[in-house]
């Protein structure tokens, strides 16, 4: 019973995430869109938890919800004008975009469904998880061991981004 509940719960979360994602792109009010994005992100974090990637889930919350979304909302507040409510928020190419994306989804979806994933996930198909869950310790070791160079590069990029952002956004 519990697995079924959990499964239902996860599917529900995924569904809600998709709905929220749709909200992100469709809602005319950009602030609402941003809030919807928060919802999507939280849903994805829940998915990560379900995939036993707790660390990523928490980082997702900490970084996306805590930091990135804060920035986004800040930017929205700084650039928002009352008149925005009344003018159209989409351009004129929504129909071609819709068609193209529909084609894309059909293409990829068909591909996904046709593929035999059992090679990757084992014979059990849906339940068997091939790899043991990764704990924080292993992750830390990998980040500061095997991947220390990309790690450092990312740090440098972060610093560069930080400085760049300050320089670009400075008022002078």
């Amino acid at each position, binding site marked *: 019973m519990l697995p079924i509940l959990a499964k239902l719960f996860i599917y529900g979360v995924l569904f809600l995430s998709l709905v929220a994602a749709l909200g992100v*792109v469709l809602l005319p009010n950009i602030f609402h869109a941003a809030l919807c994005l928060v919802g999507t992100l939280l849903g994805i974090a829940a998915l990560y938890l379900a995939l036993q*990637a707790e660390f990523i889930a928490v980082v997702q919350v900490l970084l996306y919800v805590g930091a990135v979304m804060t920035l*986004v909302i800040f930017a929205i507040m700084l650039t928002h004008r009352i008149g925005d409510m009344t003018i159209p928020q989409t351009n004129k190419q929504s129909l071609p975009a819709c068609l193209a994306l529909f084609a894309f989804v059909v293409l990829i979806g068909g591909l996904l469904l046709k593929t035999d994933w059992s090679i990757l996930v084992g014979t059990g198909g849906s339940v068997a998880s091939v790899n043991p869950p990764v704990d924080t310790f292993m992750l830390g070791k990998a980040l500061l061991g095997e991947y220390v160079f990309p790690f450092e590069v990312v740090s440098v990029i972060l610093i560069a981004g930080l400085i760049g952002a300050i320089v670009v956004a400075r008022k002078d």
Partner: protein
Amino acid sequence: MLIPLEHILIFSTLLFAIGVYGVLVRRNVVGILISIELILNSVNVNLIAFSRSNALDPVMGQVFAIFVITLAAVGATVGLAIVLALYRIKRTVYTDEINLLKW
């Protein structure tokens, strides 16, 4: 893994499609930026999902997810800074009204 891999992949495909739609259709630059975040997240979902399968070394998947998140944060930061600078100059955040490079 409670749900089949392909379901997660379909979920991420949909997420990706939605994100691309946002990028293609939204006029607001901030909107485009958050749509990009959606795209990045769909990628991350894939990474994590595959890290639980044979396709990827589990640690590798997560490490790359972390890198993606970090870089997304950087992208958002710089992007938003540009948006602010743009807004200060042009008083607008709509892509079709920004034509500084267009002659």
